[in-house]
């Protein structure tokens, strides 16, 4: 059905983070940032500001909404130039400068010109942005995502120059930095810090459970705010009613409550919605709470226990031997020989299992290392034979005991060995 395809397409776009229906709770912050950018764009004032907040609170979304809003004013669109930089992409100031040149579309002016310093280059670029009359330059908005990564560049040249120009009021410049590090100011050098205006907006997720449920609803409802996403309005009306009913169901609220208590992040909520949306089809036209229950169960798998479930019996014996060694010697590191010694004592004493050769046990040991359940403690530059390298076990005793409960066809003697009190 075409309608269902359209519904899926819209919901998938929302879940992959491309579209955000509504951003709750940041009215003050929105107003502040909006004013700052508008003043640069309309009146040529220079500004610098930082948006700080943990990951997933909506910094980029907020900025995007403000810019979309501002672009509705034709005067601003004509004048304001925007440069988008990202700390993950531009890992070096040279690359950043190239990117700025490209985004401001100034390649023709730069061709053939050779400059000494970064500052001269940047000043030349910004001077090239003169509008009609010689007196005024066009305002430029610099958006720096992952701002803290720019602070790791050599001498923080880019940041210094941007803040310097912003402060000396030559070209109207607005620098907006987005970062997840709350201590980003500490990363700046003294000379950079002094040129920064110290305006910071903090975004924290202060949603209550009610607002959380409301956000959940808005993400699933269609054709809100008079935007037509799906054409079949009868189906959309029924769909929206079903979503509202779903959000009031006790099973659904239970799942949402558990999700809210674990992780308030919007991205985790979107991950929860992926499986139910994927199940929509001809026969399954509306979202049900059972879908969400399955989805929640899928996301709450204990990953280490799941990996432990798949190791062989010999490897399990080695893990138990290591856990015993940790108990006897209070967590001091061990090497393969010690583990093998412990295993041999067990297999001679109690087990009716086949006794394995040292080399076979070594292969099992190396498999555990490959799965990163054990790790060498020293760096590999010191050459020690692999049997004598000191290792540490990255598992807890409780995790091991839990695995033994669920392990298929676990020999009882191994279970008893694991649970036995260790005598020094």
């Amino acid at each position, binding site marked *: 059905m075409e309608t269902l395809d359209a519904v899926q397409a819209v919901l998938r776009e929302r879940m992959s983070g491309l579209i955000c229906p509504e951003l709750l709770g940041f009215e003050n912050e929105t107003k502040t940032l909006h004013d700052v950018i508008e003043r640069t764009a309309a009146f040529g004032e220079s500004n610098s500001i930082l948006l700080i907040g943990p990951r997933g609170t909506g910094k980029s979304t907020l900025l995007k909404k403000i810019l979309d809003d501002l672009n509705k004013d034709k005067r601003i669109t004509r004048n304001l130039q925007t440069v988008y930089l990202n700390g993950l*992409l531009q890992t070096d100031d040279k690359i950043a400068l190239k990117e700025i040149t490209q985004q401001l579309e100034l390649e023709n002016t730069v061709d053939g010109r050779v400059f000494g310093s970064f500052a001269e280059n940047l000043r030349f670029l910004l001077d090239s942005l003169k509008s009609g009359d010689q007196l005024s330059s066009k305002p430029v908005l610099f958006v720096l995502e992952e701002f803290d990564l720019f602070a790791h560049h050599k001498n923080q040249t880019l940041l210094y120059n941007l803040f310097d120009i912003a402060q000396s009021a030559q070209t109207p410049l607005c620098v907006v930095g987005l970062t997840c590090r709350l201590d980003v100011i500490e990363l700046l050098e003294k000379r950079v810090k002094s040129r920064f205006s110290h305006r910071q907006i903090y975004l924290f997720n202060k949603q209550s459970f009610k607002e959380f449920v409301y956000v959940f609803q808005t993400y699933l409802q269609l054709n809100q705010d008079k935007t037509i996403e799906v054409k079949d309005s009868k189906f959309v009306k029924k769909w929206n009613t079903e979503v509202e009913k779903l959000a009031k169901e006790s099973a659904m609220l239970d799942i949402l409550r558990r999700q809210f208590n674990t992780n308030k992040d919007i991205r985790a909520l979107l991950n929860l919605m992926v499986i139910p949306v994927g199940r929509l089809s001809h026969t399954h036209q509306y979202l049900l709470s059972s879908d969400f229950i399955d989805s929640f169960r899928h996301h709450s798998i204990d990953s280490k226990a799941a990996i432990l479930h798949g190791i062989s019996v010999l490897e399990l014996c080695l893990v138990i031997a290591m856990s015993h060694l940790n108990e006897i010697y209070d967590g001091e590191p061990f090497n393969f020989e010690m583990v093998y010694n412990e295993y041999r004592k067990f297999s001679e004493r109690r087990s009716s299992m086949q006794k394995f050769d040292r080399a076979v046990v070594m292969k099992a040991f190396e498999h555990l290392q490959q799965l990163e359940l054990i790790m060498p403690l020293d760096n590999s530059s010191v050459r020690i034979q692999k049997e004598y390298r000191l290792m540490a076990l990255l598992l807890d005793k409780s995790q091991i005991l839990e695995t033994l409960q669920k392990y298929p066809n676990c020999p009882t003697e191994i279970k008893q060995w694991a649970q036995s009190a260790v005598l020094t």
Partner: protein
Amino acid sequence: MSSHNVLVSDKQCPVHCRDDQYYLLKSLFGQNEQHTVGSVFLYGTTGTGKSLVVNNLMHTLQVPHVKLDCTEFYSSRVLYEQVLNNISMQNSDQDSSNEAQSTPMRCDNMNDFVKLLKSTIDHLDLTNETLYIILDKAERLRDLDSNVLPATLRLKELTKCNVCVVLISEIVWEKFQGGTGLLDPFIIHFPDYNKDQLLEIMTLDTPEGHTREFYSAYCNLVINIFMVVCRNLNELRHMALLNFPKYVQPIESGECTHKDSRKLWRNIEPHLKKALQTVYLREVSSTQWEVMQMDTGGAVVPATPSHTARQSLELPFYSKYLLIAAYLASYNPAKSDKRFFAKHSGKQSKRKIVKHERTSNQLLGPKPFPLDRLMAIFYSIVEGKVSATSNIFSQVTSLVSLQLLGQIGKDVLEAPKYKCLVSLDFIKQIARSVQFDVVKYLYDFI
């Protein structure tokens, strides 16, 4: 002649015993034009069918995709160039007249990569379909530059294109997290196969001329022996196929029929036990193993120690004593030399030596010793008079190049230090050949 192909693929039928994961991924990917989540992370122990399911799905859905193994990426540049060039290569069949696509693209930083990826997608008209980038052994991405992993997970957002990155790994996601935080992908776990599932999959390899039930019974035997040690499906399949000719040998030579399971079991059991010690450890290669099977005919293969390759080492007489002296020097504390090797050891202390299991040198490993100490012990254990000629010292050097001794430190002229790298079993063998009781001289065995 081996008539089996170890790498039998399951491409004709949908993936066995992986229905849940297959259909989950299929519903996740949806239709070609629709957006998927930005990144997907698949994890599970070795041999649980992760790559197989993804490859199968890509083939069925016929979407543009790139499959890469991260072990090849010794630098991030290789990652960028491989992705870009593979995309152009796979999708340029439509436009073979364009010469620009024949030159491989160069790219050494993430910024250029994102731009080139966007332009390649536009150029090849793939904007309507989701492009899948599949990275196997994804744990290696952590070892590249620190911005590679975070940026790869955000590729959809950075390129603003319909891209989905699929990461496949054996390591759990918690070990990937680091830095200031990553965009968490959609995580799917691939559970290990239980015994019935293993049997079902291994039965698919039934060679021609035998029934599935017969091969299934044989696989049951193999699994029972090997499963305690290893649950990796690839290893088990390889072992089963490799030993099958030996299993059916009595049938072919006419000694028994298909129904005589007991006789067949008695024939194959010692053989499989031996395989556990040789081919499983890859001390003998698969082709050598096949030859060995044919040579011994129908007789039961006598059990030989697993170090057959190492035992064949023949050393000159003084080298053997030098090696024994080196072992004693490594594994005995220096203070005990006096009581073992001095002619008149004086009064033995009546105090009992307290030994802890943990400080046993056998468990801690060999300790380095100077050359003087080695020569002192050597002169004391060797029978007869030996003069300190350069022959003896050159034998020490040849032991180092055979990697039976290891040289510690850079100082070769003044005070060279060595360490003994052989195991107790090996030294016992050597000592037996010169009739020297080495255990009597070891501190740990008093």
